[in-house]
């Protein structure tokens, strides 16, 4: 089976769909001839033609706006926003338009579009190249929000997103593009080359939404994570020597609440991780649901380990990032409490 990093897998997903379906086209800032600042669209213009993979003006609102119009007109546009930190000029077109068109027209018009954008820190990107804004989108009814943690899921979920008949926001943890990352920036970086999740089938396959991936099984506690934090969770659990039920949520909206409920009802302990700012982050929704669904099974308070309620600093990146130390403290607190 071909071995791919996450960039290759994402590119391959678009390539597969562009080859299968003439209605699929790709655009965004620097995605055409250059192939994208992270290379996710490299070669697509050469292979599929100028009109199927092209550069846009630097206008995130315009990018999402034409995507809505194209999608309503029968195409399946895949738009790239160069960094999630720059998606806000397009926020109105996403929240008020893409996510609302089906509802306000009662199905007369729909917007089957996909917006891809890199999220998360770990590359010294500072306040405007590191953000994780997922919670600003999971609150929007009519929108789906997806975030893979590995090449295999990335390809399968992206193909699913392109085929979905509702608008999908596809978040790509940029720190995972080239390899898994356990949260320790001092270790030599690992690549996907020899990783089993770097084994990506060629051709078409999908990974369903609304279904979490079981990363590891254990009875000590449940750890809910997504994106980069999945790898930090795994490393931290090992470090702490706990048997953790780690769920990679993958699909934040819609969410696999069944998997969460089953796991926490069994373990009675729940740790929630995300890189985003704490207050009103997606962890809040997860904690609220667990607190309601699993109240009678809980043996310890639900804890959130997250980024701080500050912008993402540049030089203090690793003091902001919820690394193994912070996660281990969380695990310890949860395991100690009864």
């Amino acid at each position, binding site marked *: 089976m071909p071995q791919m990093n996450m960039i290759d897998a994402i590119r391959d997903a678009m390539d597969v769909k562009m080859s299968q379906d003439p209605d699929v*086209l790709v655009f965004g800032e620097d995605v055409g001839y250059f192939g994208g600042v992270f290379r996710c669209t490299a070669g697509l213009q050469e292979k599929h033609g100028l*009109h199927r993979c092209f550069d*846009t*003006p630097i*206008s995130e*609102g*315009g990018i999402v*706006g*034409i*995507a*809505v*119009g*194209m999608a*309503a*007109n*029968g*195409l399946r*546009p895949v738009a790239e926003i160069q960094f999630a930190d720059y998606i806000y*000029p397009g926020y*109105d*077109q996403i929240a*008020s*338009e893409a996510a*609302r*068109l*089906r*509802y*306000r*027209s*009662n*199905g*007369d*018009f*729909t917007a089957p579009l996909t917006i891809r954008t890199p999220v998360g820190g770990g590359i010294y990107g500072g306040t405007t190249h590191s953000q994780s804004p997922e919670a600003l989108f999971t609150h929007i*009814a*009519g929108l*789906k929000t997806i975030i893979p943690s590995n090449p295999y899921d990335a390809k399968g979920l992206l193909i699913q997103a392109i085929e979905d*008949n*509702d608008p999908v926001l596809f978040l790509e943890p940029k720190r995972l593009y080239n390899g898994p990352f356990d949260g320790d920036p001092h270790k030599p970086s690992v690549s996907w080359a020899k990783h089993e999740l770097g084994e990506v089938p060629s051709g078409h396959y999908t990974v369903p939404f*609304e279904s979490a991936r079981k990363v590891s099984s254990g009875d000590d506690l449940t750890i809910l994570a997504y994106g980069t934090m999945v790898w930090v969770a795994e490393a931290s659990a090992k470090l702490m020597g706990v048997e953790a039920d780690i769920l990679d949520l993958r699909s934040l*909206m*819609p*969410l696999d*609440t*069944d998997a969460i409920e089953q796991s926490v009802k069994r373990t009675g302990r729940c740790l929630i991780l995300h890189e985003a700012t704490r207050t009103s982050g997606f962890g809040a929704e997860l904690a609220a649901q667990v607190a309601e669904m699993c109240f009678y099974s809980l043996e310890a308070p639900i804890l959130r380990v997250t980024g701080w309620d500050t912008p993402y600093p540049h030089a203090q990146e690793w003091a902001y990032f919820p690394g193994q130390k912070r996660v281990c403290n969380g695990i310890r607190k949860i395991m100690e409490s009864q």
Partner: protein
Amino acid sequence: MTKRSNISRLHIPEPPFRPGDAPDYSHISVPANHTPHRPDPLCEGHETSEHALRLIRVLRFNGEAVGEWNPKLSAQQLHKALKDMMMTRAMDGRMFTMQRQGKMSFYMKSTGEEAMSIGHAMALRHDDMIFPTYRQQGILISRGASIKDMMCQCLSNAGDHLDGKSIPVLYSFKKHGFFSISGNLGTQLIQGVGWAMANAYRNEDAVASVITGEGSTAEGDFHYALNFASTYKAPCIINVVNNQWAISSFQGIAMGEGESFAARGTGYGLATLRVDGNDVLAVYAATKWAAERARRGGGATLIEHFTYRKEGHSTSDDPTKYRPEEEPDIWPFGDPIERLKMHLIHLGEWDEERHTAQEDACKKEIREIYKQAEAMGTLSGETNLDDMTMFEQVYEQPPRHLQRQIDMFKEELDH
């Protein structure tokens, strides 16, 4: 109370007249020969930069149709245009009254601006998708949409195709090439450009027409639309309906020091036309020109339709609070229906009697249709809509969390 003093260097534009002032627009000259020549629809964009500063007119006030822009419509087409404008005005009148009687939550009239809707719609193909604002109900009437369906949408009753989800006048009629109207101003301009790009991508020759009020040109989406339309030569028409007012703000707040809204397109290299929006033949002619340009690969045209909003912004405001009561009547460009009537009379096709008769007939027909529509329910009385419809069309399929909420709501109904 009239205009405010300003003791600061900060310049704040003010309209020429406020309540209490005697409005006088004699300075707005309406020269018969103000009309610029009609260039080849495939000319260079900058060859139309002068057109952005002048005004395309066909109908003289005496009823003559003159100049190279005269579309020379058949008598039958002229009669249809007149009838559609009159039906639009009759419907607006009726719905406004019914809103005042509490039958619906809200309504917006297009009085004085009917020519823009009707002339524009008549000049386009039915497969040309229009992205309208809430003030182009005339387009639906011109394209033969069911007035009853429109009224049912406003009444949010069982006959509303939108199941009451949207507020009155935010219609959606895909089958009539009428895009779902968003409550958010401006957003659809760039969507229409995307729609047009999709047509070009598939090598189809249908065009898209997007419409905004002059006030909404201040939104970023207007800039996106002009920029993307220019960059990708999108086959579309970008229409600015300058009806002089944006709720209580006069056009100068959006315009600033600019000379016209059409001129906003010049810097983008778009074709730019400025047309007497109360002249249905001029609107028709300008639209035809722009549609041909777009269809033949010439790219987008920005058209400013210069008109006047004769009534309040909506049922929620009283215009005499911010502009002189008599301003609508002394507005120098006349009334679009009157002007087409004069033309038909000038052609010997029409007379006052028949006009009054048709006016009554339209009112009567609208009253009849309204009766049938109201019979299907009203917001104030019984909508005859199942509340459960509220959960439909959020997504193609309701995810689990929405299913759970549907169950919670059912439980709430049982309790």
